[in-house]
Each structure stands twice: as C-alpha cells, then as structure tokens.
C-alpha cells in the first residue's frame, strides 16, 4: 500500500514535465508566427511606399517632359537643383526614404535619366560623450 504515493508522484512529475514542454513549444510557435506576420506586414508596407514613390517619380517625369517639350530648359524645372551638370530632383517619401532622380539634356528637347537612386535621410550621431578627457 505504500506504492500509491510514489505512483501518483511519478504521474504528477510526468504530466508537469509534459505540460511545461508543450507550453514552451506553444509559446515559441506563437512568437515565431507573430514575428513572421509582422515581418510580412512590414515588407508589404515598404513595398507599397516604394511603388507610391515610383508613381510620384513617374508623374513628375511626365510633367518635366511636358515642360521640356514646351521649351523650358532642364535646369529651370521647378524644385530641382543642378549638380555637376545633372538636374537633380528629390522625391520625398515617408520615414526619410527619398528617391533621387538625375536628368541630363538629350539634345533633342527631352531628357536622359542618369540617376535613379533610393536614398535615406541620415543624421550621424555626433554626441558620443567624452571618451577621454585627457
């Protein structure tokens, strides 16, 4: 009759171990799936922002081409700047993600695209504290 407490103890330990293992697995599965979903949502958001910016850039190109066809010089396009003979337009996006477009004159009243580059606003952190006071 003294066996009974041992038996229930053994069953109890077995069940608790199984429960803990299953609980750990369940939490790991849930956190992994949640992270996967958040990553997928973030990837979609980045893709959507990228193509919205592309849309704005292509619309600007159409307007720029129309102005050039009407006799406006490339360097006179509004909201642009000239760098080393290249007319540069920055299409501002969300979260500091910009699209930089560079155009040159193709000599036939239109443009040639020489630059189409995503660029991010980045401000270096200059305040690093005093490393050595001397």
């Amino acid at each position, binding site marked *: *009759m003294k066996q*009974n407490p041992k*038996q*229930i103890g053994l*069953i*109890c330990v077995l*069940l608790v171990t*199984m*429960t803990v293992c*299953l*609980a750990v697995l*369940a*939490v790991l*599965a*849930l956190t*992994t*799936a*949640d992270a*996967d*979903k958040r*990553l*997928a*949502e973030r*990837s*979609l958001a980045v*893709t*959507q922002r990228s*193509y*919205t910016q*592309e*849309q704005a850039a*292509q*619309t600007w*190109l*159409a*307007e720029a*081409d*129309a102005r*050039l*066809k*009407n006799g406006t010089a490339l360097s006179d396009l509004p909201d642009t700047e000239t760098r080393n003979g290249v007319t540069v337009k920055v299409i501002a996006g969300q979260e500091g993600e910009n699209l930089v477009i560079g155009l040159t004159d193709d000599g036939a009243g*239109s443009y040639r695209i020489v630059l189409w580059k995503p660029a991010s606003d980045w401000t270096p952190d200059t305040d690093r504290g005093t490393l050595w006071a001397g």
Partner: protein
Amino acid sequence: MRRHTAFYMSTLFLLLLFMGVLAVLTGVFSQAQKKSAEAKQLTAATELARNAAEAVADAGSRADLLTLLQESGNAAMDGETVCASYDEELRPSAAGIYRVSITYEPTARIGGTLVNSTVTVRMGENPEAICSLSTAVYIRGERAG
C-alpha cells in the same frame, strides 16, 4: 480502500487538469498556425504584387502586359483589367489560388503617356484583397493602350 480512492481521485484530478492545459495549448498552437498561414499568404501576395508592378513598368501597352504575364494560360483580360492566377508555389496556373488583378490606365501627356496602375492580390474567390499597391510608368513618345 480509502487510499485507493484517494489515488484514483488524485489521478483523475491530474488528468482533468492536464486535459484543461492541453485544451489551452491547442488553442495557442491553432492561433500560431493561423498567424503563420497569414504571414505566408501576405509574403506570397507581396511578391506577386511586386512582380506585377515590374511587369507594368516593362510593358508598353495593356496587350504587352498580358503577354508578359501569360504563361500556361494563367492570364486573361477582364474588361480593362488584366488578371493572372498563381498556385501556392507562385507558379503561373489557370486554376491557381492567388488572383492578381492589374488595372492599366494610360493618360496622354504632351511628351508621351503616363500609365497609372493598381495591383490587387486576392485569395481564391474571396473579394477581400490580401494586398494592393499603386504604381505608374511614363512612356515617352509612344502611345500606350
């Protein structure tokens, strides 16, 4: 006899407790499986939408777009919208579960044609879109349609 009863009662209680915990954990696993499936769908839909947007950028016209997407009879015109289907592995398939709809709206400009396009990805016959994105392409000189 009492000890036997106590043992059986304890075992029964433990088993009931274990079954309760198992029921909760089954719910957690089920939720994890659902989220994982949603993540897989969203990733696939984003990939398909990106591919379709690049096809719009390459196409010179709506007919070109249809030709670019056409493979194994998976693409067709639905009014003015180009529709393409893909299977779970994102292979072109006429009976695919992913349905990609691409609008192609050319607007004549002074120097060419500006084409605005919206790509929408749906799952099967579900009218709710998994994802959608807008893009545009400017085609110089030619007339797109």
